């Protein structure tokens, strides 16, 4: 609280930053995730950039209950609200490994929600329960070499074989996070190629099924600690019971799933930008040029002011949208805005932080260039900027 002293109200820059959506329990959770990330993950960040992070991160996070924060207790989750998953996304930034945070988010916030929402009890027991324990790893297969943003343009086919009551799947998927390590994939296929959005069906395909080929590990600009796969499905046979949700409703199932994921992504971007800002502020106060700390130059000071303002707008937009989402609304327009804005400003902030670091910013050692490389994905993954603009624009009837 700002305090009145001599009848003058002074600005209180040290005021608690806690937003009203968060309770004391959230703050305790925040502390515990941060401490875990700093102690158990961050020390390995550089090493995991080279090797990708180990599967043991899943089991450890499962032990700690971090993989099912907002999932029902009946499934082994913590029964928390939606905000707990925001807290996780924000605090995992302290692992200093964008790829790790992404691998976890794909597991908990991309692949798991549709199984929980649309899966049968058997499917939940088979996949979600062990996934929350970190014993099984999930991935999600939407994008294909020839179809990314245009989900209806996918070519992976699932054809029903009445003789065996099985589906035979053929096709390929690319840019699949966790694709090499996953035990199961939530696979988007076409069961009726003539039905457009209505011909898309989700399957739960075990990754050890015959005909599932994990091709080369894809090399990327950033997110080096995550594994990104090109996958091929060659006459993969799954029982009809492997359908997730309703046949022909896959597009709608996935569209729903994407909303929660995008907001989580926005929260991760805000936290990533804030961490980069903090790191750079420290540098700007220490680094001397022309006889003073570089942060004391007006132009640099203003850069910080711009960055802080950008981060704050994205944070408020994300939190307010999360509040609406948590209250049961389905604010697709605002979610798209939050995702678009947070991704953009986070990349701008990281870029400005590189610039403020000067030559050091270009060097791997200082870690800023990695933040930029990692954050840059957010303007592409989970719906590009351009797709967000489409969603927002069309929401006005345009």
């Amino acid at each position, binding site marked *: 609280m700002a305090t009145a002293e001599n009848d003058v109200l002074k600005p209180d820059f040290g005021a608690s930053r806690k937003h009203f959506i968060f309770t004391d329990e959230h703050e305790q959770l925040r502390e515990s995730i941060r401490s875990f990330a700093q102690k158990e993950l961050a020390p390995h960040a550089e090493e995991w950039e080279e090797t990708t992070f180990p599967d043991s991160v899943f089991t450890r996070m499962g032990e700690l209950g971090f993989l099912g924060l907002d999932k029902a207790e009946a499934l082994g989750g913590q029964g928390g609200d939606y905000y707990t998953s925001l807290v996780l996304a924000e605090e995992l930034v302290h692992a200093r490994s964008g790829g790790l945070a992404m691998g976890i988010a794909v597991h908990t916030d991309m692949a798991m929600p549709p199984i929980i929402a649309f899966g049968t009890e058997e499917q939940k027991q088979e996949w979600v329960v062990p996934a929350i324990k970190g014993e099984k790893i999930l991935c999600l297969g939407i*994008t294909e070499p*020839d*179809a*990314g*943003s*245009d989900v209806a*343009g996918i070519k992976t086919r699932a054809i029903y074989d009445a003789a065996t009551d099985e589906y035979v799947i053929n096709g390929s998927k*690319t*840019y699949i996070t966790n694709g090499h390590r996953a035990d199961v994939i939530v696979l988007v296929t076409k069961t009726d190629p003539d039905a457009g959005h209505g011909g898309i069906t989700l399957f739960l395909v075990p990754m050890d099924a015959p005909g599932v080929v994990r091709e080369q590990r*894809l*090399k*990327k*600009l*950033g997110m080096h600690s995550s594994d990104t796969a090109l996958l091929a499905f060659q006459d993969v046979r799954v029982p009809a019971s492997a359908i997730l949700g309703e046949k022909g409703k896959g597009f709608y199932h996935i569209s729903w799933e994407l909303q929660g994921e995008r907001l989580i992504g926005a929260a991760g971007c805000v936290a990533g930008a804030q961490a980069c800002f903090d790191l750079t502020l420290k540098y700007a106060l220490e680094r*001397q*040029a*022309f006889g003073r700390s570089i942060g004391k130059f007006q*132009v*640099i000071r203003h850069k910080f002011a711009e960055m802080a303002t950008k981060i704050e707008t994205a944070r408020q937009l994300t939190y307010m949208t999360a509040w609406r989402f948590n209250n049961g609304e389905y604010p697709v327009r605002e979610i798209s805005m939050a995702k678009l804005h947070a991704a953009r400003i986070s990349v701008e902030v990281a*870029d400005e932080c*590189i*610039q403020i670091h*000067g*030559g050091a*910013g*270009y*060097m*791997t*050692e200082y870690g800023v*260039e990695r933040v*930029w*490389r990692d954050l*840059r*994905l957010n*303007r*592409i*993954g989970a719906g*590009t*900027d*351009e797709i967000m*603009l489409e969603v927002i624009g069309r929401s006005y009837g345009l």
Partner: protein
Amino acid sequence: MSPEPPFSEEHEALRESIRRFVLAELRPHATEWEAARWFPDEVFAKFAAHGFLGLKYEERYGGQGGDFLHEAILVEELAHCGSGGLAAGVGAHTNIATPPIAKFGTEDQKQRYLAPAIAGEKIGALAITEPDAGSDVAGLKSHARRVDGGWVVNGSKMFITNGVRAHFWVTAVKTTSEGGHHGLSFLILDRQEGVSASPIKKLGWHASDTALMAFDDAFVPEQNLLGRENEGFYLIMANFQWERLVMALGAVGAMQVAYDKTVAYAKQRNAFGKPLTGHQALRHKLADIATTVHVSRVVTYDALRRFVHGGDAVKEVTMAKLATQRACFDVMDTCLQLHGGAGYMEEYEIERMARDARLGPIGGGTDEIMREILSKVLAL
């Protein structure tokens, strides 16, 4: 089509021959050299075999007797090699390390360093920046102590392109205890036990070697003082104009390559039933890029023309550097975005171009330093 001023038919013929060389001898190896974070020293010899390390240098040192315009063509065409680090390594040799020797060196120094550098037999580096002093040259701490027959140098240097592979380093050192810009001198250091260099990992320019260097009682003979003692600051300033023009030209070349590559991709990639260029918002982004490339080229050529004609071009060169470096990175970033998921993957090389371009607003004087210079030039 007639050549765009300031270039002539002869320059365009040179452009053709350089491009053939770049596409045949360099481009096929770019990915391999990027992954190795090194390109072989023999590349210098290959350049030399075609006379490309001495385009602007006098024939009596093995050069081609051309001028800065010939060199400008080489700089632009190197954008086709597919590796900013490779272009940087060669550029550091021909446009940063050797020009001060050509301009300020004694006949003996030219024979011992410039001629073998043009022949690709000795590789050069320029060493100014230090861990604690980048933009602020007055803050340099490496120093040379007078001894019998020369100097003994101690200190460290940072972000030195070709630092590991170089045979000689044109090095800025303090030769007096005076602070500020005075008391700086340039010495040419040879490879020796007292000079060590280790590579530094970077966001981009992976194929170039960028070193952290340490001088531990390195000896420099009397005859390796370059230019006048305690007047090194003047030498630094003298080459800045050309170095910055080189960066502007490199950016123009790189932007053009990225634009062409992205247009080709956007025309063949389909989404929602039509090529990417069939989507208005994406098409307009490409129109913007084409405009940026054109504006950058015009501003750069204007500065180049003024520079070559010998007038004071500090304002225009500084503006060209400032305008093109951020523009180049922005163009790369948009091209990356237009490639979608593919843009994020190494395979498509757009991410490499973006990483390489990001050095522009930092190296050769940051954008902020450019604005400071302009503030002075414009008497603000």
